[in-house]
């Protein structure tokens, strides 16, 4: 049992925090998010070139540093703190997670391009688990995909998508790599409340080569579930950074805001509210570390730990974010302070990769299955 970071991990975290403090100031971020394309491709390359960030959680043979869940956790927390919109979660955790576990040279080559920053690969799956509406059928040249995908976050920024589909004659899920510019793929893009861009996809007679299929047809359901758990653990870590900022800003505000002749931090009810927020954050951290460390365990242990974390973090996000706004009063509801943007990201995280009820149900179901 050990909960200490090793030296390389500390270095990764500190370098990243320093980099973002300098290069990702909130006002600059706001302008980026308001404009087009809504993110910074040049910064993404610097993540790869200057920080080696994009490969931090990838295997060494793919040009990564051989890290894993802990590295993802550290990056995501730092991204949460600075409210980074760039698609580390979608590309480096989810898509790279799939590719790293998929056989074949094409997958390995694409993975290496992720690590060096030249490919932005983004998943297009229904969330949570289930609802594979897209059909794939074999053609003489490979595959043809038809169907729709909803709310694929970061898809407008992608060079490639990983699309889930059902292959005719199989019952499970299959995953395909789809180049963004492929004929037959149409994206309808829109912003999200939390400053990202998402798209609905329409695949109509979308033709792919034989190598587009990752792994075996119909055999990717378990991998998909694993990735949803890894994604959930990653947003839990991001939430830690988001909540730390919400708490810090609120603490600063109540110490400065004066009403009734004193700083409102002097009111016991306000003090206890800040403590309650702090308690939620402490527990969210404990559960998130647990989930990250459990990602390599059995599917059941992993799922129980991830549901534990996701429920704990979602409830913390709700409580911390709502009270941060409440204690800020009207100012907390505006788009003028960073707070509002952190609030919206916390709200999105609450339900990303399954809301509280989804994870309560799954946890209850898994507890009925003997270990």
């Amino acid at each position, binding site marked *: 049992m050990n909960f200490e970071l090793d030296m390389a991990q500390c270095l990764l975290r500190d370098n990243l925090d320093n980099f973002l403090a300098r290069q990702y100031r909130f006002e600059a971020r706001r302008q980026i998010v308001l404009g087009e394309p809504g993110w910074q491709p040049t910064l993404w390359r610097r993540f790869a070139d200057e920080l080696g960030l994009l490969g931090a959680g990838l295997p060494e043979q793919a040009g990564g540093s051989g890290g894993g869940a802990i590295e993802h956790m550290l990056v995501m927390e730092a991204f949460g703190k600075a409210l980074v919109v760039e698609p580390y979660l979608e590309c480096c955790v989810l898509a790279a997670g799939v590719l790293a576990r998929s056989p074949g040279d094409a997958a390995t080559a694409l993975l290496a391009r992720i690590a060096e920053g030249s490919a932005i690969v983004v998943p297009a799956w229904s969330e949570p688990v289930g609802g594979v509406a897209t059909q794939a059928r074999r053609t003489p040249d490979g595959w043809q995909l038809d169907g729709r995908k909803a709310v694929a976050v970061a898809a407008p920024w992608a060079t490639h998508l990983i699309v889930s589909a059902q292959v005719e004659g199989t019952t499970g899920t299959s995953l395909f790599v789809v180049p963004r510019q492929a004929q037959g793929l149409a994206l309808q893009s829109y912003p999200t409340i939390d400053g990202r861009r998402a798209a609905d996809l329409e695949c109509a007679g979308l033709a792919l080569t034989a190598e587009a299929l990752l792994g075996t047809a119909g055999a990717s359901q378990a991998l998909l579930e694993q990735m949803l758990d890894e994604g959930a653990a990653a947003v839990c870590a991001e939430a830690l950074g988001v909540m730390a900022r919400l708490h810090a800003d609120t603490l600063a505000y109540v110490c400065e805001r004066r009403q009734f002749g004193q700083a409102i931090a002097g009111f016991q009810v306000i003090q206890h509210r800040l403590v309650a927020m702090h308690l939620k954050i402490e527990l969210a951290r404990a559960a998130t570390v647990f989930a990250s460390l459990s990602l390599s365990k059995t599917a059941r242990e992993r799922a129980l730990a991830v549901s534990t974390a996701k429920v704990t973090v979602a409830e913390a996000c709700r409580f911390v974010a709502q009270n941060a706004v409440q204690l800020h009063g009207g100012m907390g509801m505006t788009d003028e302070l960073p707070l509002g943007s952190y609030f919206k990201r916390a709200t999105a995280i609450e*339900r990303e990769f399954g809301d509280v009820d989804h994870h309560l149900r799954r946890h209850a179901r898994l507890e009925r299955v003997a270990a």
Partner: protein
Amino acid sequence: MYLDWRDADLAFRDEVRAFLADAVDDELRAAGTRMTSVYPDHHASIAFQKKLAARGWGAPSWPREHGGCEWSAVQRYLFTRERLAAGAPPPPLGVHMVGPAIIRFGTPDQHARFLPGTLSGDVLWSQGYSEPESGSDLASLQMPAIDDGDDLVCTGSKIWTTHAHVSNWMFALVRTSREAKPQRGISFVLLDMHSPGISVRPIVMSSGEHIQNQVFFDRVRVPKRNVLGAIGDGWTVAKFQLEFERSNLASAPELQLRLDELRAFAATVPHDAGGTLLDDPLFASRLAAARIRATTLEQYELQALSTIAAGGSPGLAASVMKIVGTELSQHLTELALDAAGAYGRAYQPQAFRAGGDVRLPHGCGQTRGPLAAAVAPLRYLNDRAGTIYAGSTEIQYNILAKATLGL
């Protein structure tokens, strides 16, 4: 004791219902049912007021001599319920928020200048109470109004002035003297928004909507004939106005409608475990718990209404209703966001009728996903205001502690 409405009440309700069936056209209904916050589309609100005024119903609470209909508290309650059920937007706030104060404290000249326009929807009011440094502690407000002959000269700033950028008049509290007690030395003024020296800064909310403003005053001259009540006696006028505002809090009818909507939406959302979200025992029990809270609040409101109808005062019930109603309303926006699923993350304000311009980038084409999902995040964000404005929940607790506990 009995629960049923009296026959006269039912007859009134049917009259209102018949009027609304005719008056609320598609345009008004869209404005009323597609709101993203408590603030309706400005133009629709005026259009509805004009229809009401034409019917003689422009001012439910005003005395008949000023063009009001002198409805009882029960009638006003029934009207609101029917108005909500018909999907009409709320009328502009001036009729209810400042009209009664003008009637009570105004001179005949002021009555003549302000009441007809307020009734017809031509005079549109905003409220200038809060200042950047005076929110919950309203009595600490500072904006000076210096006596200069026939005028008061105002310099300073008001904040959270809803719709100030589209209103032509403001009722505001200003400081006309600095005596020991902060409540003294405040005056209640009626301010022409076209006066020289006024500038309006938009405040964009995190939902992207521009409804709120900060208003700056640079030596703005207010004729003394626009002071309501005596100079220095503005706190009395404001207290009357706030009491009146509080006496009409009845949030349960709207919450019940929201629950109906939510229920109908949940019945269309496919669920992991088969069936719809409504078949999920967890969601169904959360919905039942919310309905129970709404029904309990409704009964509490009706019992308070009964007290008022019997000539009593709602007293502290107003604080109870404010606390409970806003908390439940926020909870319903959470459930709606749960039901919305992945599309609840999409930012699609164009699918609805915001209370003002939307200032954050958004699509303008076809709505993706269900309509109810498109509005869910906007309502969630905007509804945070409920526990903040008009006396935050914490302030209401302080009021109740002082009064009911004798602490």
